């Protein structure tokens, strides 16, 4: 078993591969994260995503076009519970720079910026309606985890973890999930896993605690009785979308989901869903 850890996309990345010598594949997987961050980061002024947000329309790379396409499809599938157009709401809430640089601020937060608005993907051409800007933070990490796992799988069975987003290829992987009172171990042999929650990436604005999970329907940090949601889906991209969808839905609705998941409520309960229940 070989393990490599590094920082990318504002989070800790972990690569695990069932092989003794996999330097080339590990290098390729790490480079893939760096390559995709350079395309998908909204914090890098020279990234393709920043150019799209500035200009409103670009001929994009295959990767940006694909991630935007996946995000728009997720918006339709979840009836707007997942929406990549929350960019301005995140900025209004104070998350306008890499999270390490976000600071508490006593000034009141400006009014919420509503999400929604036209996003058109036609081949490699992406066009945004006037005033629409995209944030691909979570779904971008899931996508990068999947792409890196593809490269790493050339060396053997592998797991790629990008913060809360996990992609596996072959083998069986015990993955720890934080619950209300400890850690639950899930053995993952196929698919992807994602965790979304309000327990990290928090800051204070105008005397109020703010977190990064913006409810697209209100443009405000989501008010929900859930602290954290972990789900297992067909891949890390889908898991990222479903985790957010269930988080916004709240524990009553999310508990009825048939997706395998672990819900942790703010009052300290842990609920299992789908095949884990």
């Amino acid at each position: 078993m070989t393990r490599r850890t590094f920082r990318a996309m504002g989070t800790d990345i972990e690569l695990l591969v069932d092989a003794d010598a996999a330097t080339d594949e590990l290098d390729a997987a790490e480079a893939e994260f760096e390559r995709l961050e350079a395309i998908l980061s909204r914090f890098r002024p020279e990234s393709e995503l920043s150019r799209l947000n500035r200009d409103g329309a670009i001929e994009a790379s295959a990767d940006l076009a694909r991630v935007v396409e996946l995000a728009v499809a997720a918006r339709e599938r979840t009836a707007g519970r997942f929406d990549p157009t929350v960019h301005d709401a995140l900025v209004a809430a104070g998350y306008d720079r890499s999270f390490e640089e976000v600071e508490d601020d006593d000034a009141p937060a400006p009014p919420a910026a509503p999400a929604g608005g036209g996003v058109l993907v036609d081949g490699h051409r992406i066009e945004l309606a006037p005033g629409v800007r995209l944030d691909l933070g979570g779904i971008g990490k899931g996508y990068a985890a999947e792409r890196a796992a593809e490269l790493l799988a050339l060396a053997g069975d592998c797991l790629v973890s990008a913060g809360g987003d996990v992609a596996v290829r072959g083998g069986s992987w015990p993955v720890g999930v934080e619950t209300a009172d400890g850690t639950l171990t899930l053995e993952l042999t196929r698919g992807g896993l994602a965790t979304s929650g309000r327990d990290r990436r928090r800051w204070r604005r105008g005397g109020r605690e703010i977190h990064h999970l913006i409810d697209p329907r209100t443009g405000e940090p989501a008010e929900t009785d859930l602290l954290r949601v972990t789900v297992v889906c067909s891949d890390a991209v889908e898991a990222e979308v479903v985790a957010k969808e269930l988080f916004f839905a709240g524990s009553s609705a999310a508990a009825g989901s048939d997706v395998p998941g672990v819900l942790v409520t703010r009052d300290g309960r842990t609920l299992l869903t789908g095949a884990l229940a």
Partner: protein
Amino acid sequence: MANHTARLYAVALALVVFFVGWAAIAAQPWAPTAAADPRLQALNVRAALLKQRAAFISQVTALRAKQPAAAAASPAVRVVNLPPLTVTRTS
């Protein structure tokens, strides 16, 4: 008769010697070897890289094809009593 045959052989031999000599002179073996064109060298390097990339993509494609569609679509997960290899947190 014998002289006639000998003459024919001599003519044929002379022709062969003539053309071999011509070919040898046309090849200009004394000329210095021209320096390789750097653009050609760059193209050769690029071609080698593209071949390497193509082989790599073929490997990834083959790996994807090995995964049955139904299996890839459904996750497989269960709760176990094992120490975790990694712990997932809010991203």
